[in-house]
C-alpha cells in the first residue's frame, strides 16, 4: 500500500506579515482584561470548588462510639491494584471482627476508588481532598487512627439518583 504524503504549505520567510494574527491575539487578551469576573482563584485564601466525585486521600468511617466501621473482611487489599493496603484482622473484646492493623500507603495508591466500591460495610472511602503535603515520606502511610481522623467529605463514586449512569 502506497503511503500518501500531505504537503504542508508553509508561509515563506520574509513574504508574510504576522500583524493580523498578532492583532487577533491581542484582541482576546484585551477582552479578558475588561471582562467582568476574574479567572484567578485566590488560593489559599479561597478554597477552589472540586468535584464531588474527586478521588483523594482516604477516610475511614466510624461508628457513633468511635470504633472503625471496618470489619477486616480483606476485600480492599484483595481488590487494590496498587497493593497499597495492609490489613491484619482480629477480634475485639466484644467478639467483633475488626482491623488490628489497617494501613494505606498513599504514595503507592493510584486513587482508583475500588476499595470504596468493594467495601461491604461502607467503611473505607476515598475523599474529596487534595491538600496532602507532609514533611516526611513516612507520614504518607496512613494508619487506622489517621484514617479515622480525616474529616473531609468522602467521594461520591456515582450519582445516587442515577447509579448506573443511564
Amino acid at each position, binding site marked *: 500500500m502506497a503511503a500518501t504524503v500531505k504537503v504542508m504549505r508553509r508561509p515563506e520567510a520574509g513574504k508574510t506579515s504576522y500583524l493580523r494574527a498578532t492583532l487577533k491575539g491581542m484582541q482576546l487578551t484585551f477582552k479578558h482584561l475588561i471582562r467582568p469576573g476574574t479567572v484567578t482563584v485566590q488560593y489559599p485564601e479561597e478554597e477552589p470548588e472540586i468535584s464531588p466525585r474527586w478521588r483523594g486521600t482516604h477516610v475511614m468511617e466510624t461508628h457513633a462510639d468511635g470504633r472503625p466501621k471496618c470489619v*477486616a*473482611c480483606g*476485600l480492599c487489599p*484483595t481488590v487494590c491494584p496498587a497493593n497499597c493496603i495492609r490489613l491484619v484482622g*482480629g*477480634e475485639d473484646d466484644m*467478639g467483633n*471482627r475488626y482491623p488490628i492493623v489497617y494501613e494505606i500507603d498513599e504514595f503507592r495508591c493510584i486513587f482508583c476508588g475500588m476499595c470504596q466500591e468493594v467495601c*461491604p*460495610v461502607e467503611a473505607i472511602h476515598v475523599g474529596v481532598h487534595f491538600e496532602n503535603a507532609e514533611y516526611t515520606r513516612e507520614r504518607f502511610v496512613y494508619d487506622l487512627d489517621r484514617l479515622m481522623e480525616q474529616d473531609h467529605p468522602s467521594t461520591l463514586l456515582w450519582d445516587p439518583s442515577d447509579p448506573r449512569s443511564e
Partner: protein
Amino acid sequence: MGENGQKQDIVTLTIDGREVTVPKGTTILQAAEAVGNRIPHYCYHPGLSAPAQCRLCLVEVEGAPKLAPSCITDVQDGQVVHTESASAKGMRQGVLEFYLANHPLDCPICDQSGECKLQDYVFEEGRKHGRSREPKRVFGRDDFGGDVLFYGDRCVMCTRCVRFMDEMAQDPRLTVVERGNRSIIDTFFEEGVEGAPYAGNIVDICPVGALVSKDFLHKARAWDLDHTPSVCPNCSQGCNIDLQTRDNLVQRLKPRPNLDVNQYWMCDYGRHRYEWMNRGDRIEAPLQRGAGGHEATDWPGVLEPIFTRMADGAAPVRALASPFASNEALAALVYLVQGLGGGEIVFRSPRADEEIPLPGFPKLTRRRDLVPNRRGAELLGLSRVGEEDGTGGLEELKDHSGTLIVLGDDLTDLESDFGAHASLYLYLGSHFPPAAAEADVVMPITTHAEEEGTFTNYEGRVQRFWPALQGPGAARPAWLPLSLLAAHLNGTTPPSGADEAFVRAGELAPEFQGLTYESIGTRGALVNEPVTLPGGKLRS
C-alpha cells in the same frame, strides 16, 4: 465395588447426554463426578454415610415420578439423568433460597468466605435477591470446646459433623436438637468436643462457616492462602496434608485426601503442630569457626576447607541424624560417611506412650513415633539410640575424637562442650543450639516445609512433599551440601536435584530401588521389600 469385568457388574447410563460406564452400586452423584459433572451437595461426604437430607443434589431421572437424590440413588442400566434440566435447576434454586432464609449473610466476617459451598452454589445458580421478609432467627455463637467454634446462624444442617463424630470418631458428642427452623447442632455436655483427638476434622468437612477453627479465626482469608501438597511431619503415619501458607508463614494444615493413608482426615495433634515451621531464629548463612567464635561466610567458604581437611586422613567417623530429615538427606549422609571410611550413624526419636487411632478408619492412627521418617532412617541402615523422649544415648558421640557429623538434631539436652574432642565437627541444622558451639562448620539447612523431598512412613510408603516456604538466606536442603562433600570424596558427580538424590538412595537401600519421583506421585508408593507392621503382620 466389583471390578472383575463381568458384564452384570457394569452399568451404562446417560448423564446430561454423556454416556457413562461405572460399576454397579455407584451412586448417580459419584458417576457424574467421574465424568467431571459436580452435582451440588451438602450432606453427602465421600467418607461418611449419606442421609439425603440437604435436598440439593436432586436430579431428574427419566421415568421416575419425582426428582431423585443423586447421593443415594444407585445407577441403573439405561438410566437417563438430567442434572441441568429446568426442574432440577429450579429445585436447586428453591432449596438455596430456603437456605438463605435464615442465613445471616455475614460473609465479610466469616472465615469460610472464599471456600464456602453456600457462597459458591448461590453465586452459580441462586436467586439474585431474597424474597423472605420475615425476621431471621438468631442463635449467636457457641464454644464447642477444643479448637472448634460454632456459629449457629450460618449452619445449613447437613449434619456432617454429627455423622463424623458418630461414624468416624465413634464418640458421639454432637447432635441435632429442636425441630423445623429452630433445629440446631448442639453438644450433649458442657465440654463439647474438648479432648476428642480427631474433632478438628468437623471444621474441615463443614461446607459453610458454621464450624470454624479458633486457631485460624480471622487469621487469613481463604483466597490469600497458597496451597502446597505435603506430608504431615508430626508422626510416622505420614498423613497427606495441604500446607496453607501466606506471607511465607504456615497458616494452617488441612488433610489432603489419600484413601491409602488418611482418607479425608488427620488428627488434631498433627494439625496444630506447625508453629515450629514458622520459627524465626534461623541460621541464615554458613558459619565457620574462627578464633573469636563463628563467622558468617558463603558456601564455597565452608565447603572448600572441609574438602582439604577430609583429604588429610581417615579419622573414625560418627554421625547423628534427625528422623525429621528426608530420605534424600539421610542417603546423602550415608554416602558421605561411607566416603570417609564408614562409621556408625544413629538417630534419636521421641515416642509417645500410646497410639491414637481413628475408630472409623483404624489405619489412620497417631503413631507412637512422633517423627516422620523413622522407617526411612532404618531402611538406610541408621539405628535408633536414646530414651523414649528423644534425649540421651549420645555418650559415645560426646567423647568421640574423630570426625563428627550432626544432621538436623537439635541437641537440646547437651551442653556447649559437645564435640569438643572431635577432630572435625560438622553441624547441619536450621537453628543454632548451644551444643553447636564447638562445631568447626555450621551449615544452614531448610526445613521440610521449605524443600522438596520424601518421607517413608510407618508402613514403608514413600511420600513426596513440595516446598511451601522460601528458606531463609543461604539455607539449602541438607542433601545438597552432604552430596557435594560425598561426591568430592568418592570422585563422583553430585545429584542435580532432589529427584536424582532420591534415585541414589535406591542404590543404598534395595527397598527404594525402582522408585522415582514420577512413580511416587502425589499418592505415595510402597517400598519394595515386605516390612513388619507394628502388630507383627507382614505386608508385601
